[in-house]
């Protein structure tokens, strides 16, 4: 089962590489026994270390990588601000920024929050479910309005985590 998934994963990576990198392909070898992707291009221009670095962290180790043209490899990685952490809704419901209509919002942009501090509530089936910060940091953006319906997994806020975790 795991082998199967690994093979599929490897294959996807190999095809991804073949698609993304320029130059005519000569052959691709994908193996799952000891985990191997082998991609061979027609014109050799050597940059193997760059390819290895561009592979997602979760990818299996690449045993052998053939030469490639020195094209921009940064495209392989999705450009997201890795310095920000999203707080997502754990359920379908209605998001509220404050505990009651006339109360102050739990947090506003610029506030510092501690890990596990309430940042809002999601009401589902008349139950109010507290949403808490997953890490300490600064609230940089609130992505949903008060009383807005939200889906499962919908991002509610972006937080810039602080180095030292405030929650002790």
């Amino acid at each position, binding site marked *: 089962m795991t082998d*199967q*998934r690994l*093979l*599929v994963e490897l*294959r*996807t990576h190999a095809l991804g590489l073949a698609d993304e990198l320029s130059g005519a392909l000569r052959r691709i070898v994908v193996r799952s026994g000891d985990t191997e992707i082998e991609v061979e291009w027609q014109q050799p221009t050597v940059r193997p270390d760059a390819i290895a670095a561009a592979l997602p962290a979760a990818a299996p180790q690449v045993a052998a990588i053939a030469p490639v043209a020195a094209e921009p490899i940064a495209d392989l990685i999705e450009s997201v601000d890795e310095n920000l952490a999203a707080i997502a809704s754990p*359920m*379908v*419901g*209605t998001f509220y920024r404050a505990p009651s209509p006339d109360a102050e919002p739990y947090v506003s942009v610029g506030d510092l929050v501690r890990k596990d501090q309430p940042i809002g509530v999601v009401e*589902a*089936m008349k139950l109010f479910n507290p949403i808490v910060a997953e890490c300490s940091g600064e609230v940089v953006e609130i992505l949903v309005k008060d009383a807005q*319906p939200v*889906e*499962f*997994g*919908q991002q509610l806020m972006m937080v810039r985590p602080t180095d030292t975790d405030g929650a002790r």
Partner: protein
Amino acid sequence: MFKKVLIANRGEIALRVARACRELGINSVGVYSTADRDDLVLRHFDEVVHIGPPAGRRSYLNAAAIIEAASQTGADAVHPGYGFLSEDPDFAEVCVDNDLTFIGPRAEVMGALGDKSTARRLMLDQGLPLLPGSVEALRTYAEAKSEADAVGYPIIIKAVAGGGGKGMSVVHAPDDLETAYRAARATAAAVFGDGRVYLERYVAAARHVEVQILCDHYGNGIHLGTRDCSVQRRHQKLIEEGPAPALSQATLDDITSTAVRGALAIGFTGAGTFEFLVDENEKFYFMEVNARLQVEHTVSEMITGIDLVHEQLHVAAGVPLRLSQQDVEVRGHAIECRVNGEDPDRDFAPTAGLIERFIPPGGPFTRVDTHAFSGYRLGPHYDSLLAKVIVWAPDRIGALNRMERALGEFEVSGPGVRTTIPMLRRVLADFEFRKAEHSTAIVPRLLGN
């Protein structure tokens, strides 16, 4: 009629219902789990809501998320499809409490039918024939023993709360009863959260024949003919056809009118199926009622020309039946084959993986209901049904030949992906099956066990 219907399901049946909605000018709301976040599927709905992570219990079985999604989108009804919440009376009740029409029978009728011992009692009271066995749940092993001795072996033990072929156990000899009885109770408790079981005579070479019914809220009910679903493995259907072959017209008339009578007597509303076991002497016995649309409803659609989901939506919206029994004319023969992502070499274990090439069949009188496509990832989270192929022809042999042609065109391939297609083709080519002399024993025979 409804303005907006939320479809609380996934896969081919969610698409099936969405298509009916679109044809009737009803807006549809699709719900999906993280595993089903697929634009090629979601484009069939007018709106979609992400309701939860892949695990069914937190998404498609999550009543709270579905009700919230319905109220967010302003849906006025919920179509449960089959499986998941479709036969959950509590869910039907929660829908009503939230001013949503549940497209199915009333919660109390569904509750009574979902409890197999209550259903058997109800039908016995209406004069429907039952197989010899315990009508009510067995209370003790001693009771099981005396009941089994009275009925005679082999017997089959079934879960009162069961369904989908799970929690059944065949016992051939008295020495095996105690182990089987205790195992069946434990399985039922684990799978259905209800350890009650009952037993009845086991008929090895029987036919599984069912009647499609449709009832409105005003005491009107009709049937849409019969289906034979004898080609099963582990009590799960592989091939369904209609009308049930090799039965006399008198038997067909008797079985269909019995089903309608039973349905009306218990106040059934909507689309449902009465399942019967038919022995070699064409004597039939009531098995259970499926209070929902079934996977194989397509067979009835093909032989009657009636769109069951259209009618189901109308009836649920409070419209009196638009058809009388005289309007239902069964013509020709239809067959459905279930193409599942399963490995026949590993006891039909579900397979997962990327489907690189998915080329469904086409051609005359050939219908394919599927949510899959080239590039579709078959995940491990849900049941393995990939596609239903349904064909129609003026007669049974013509339908078998057409199905053989259609399955020959069907290509499903990818690393590690295996399907039931080879097994289905073996059944279609089987001499006994072609002569319609088969029984529920056919798949075990072909598999050599």
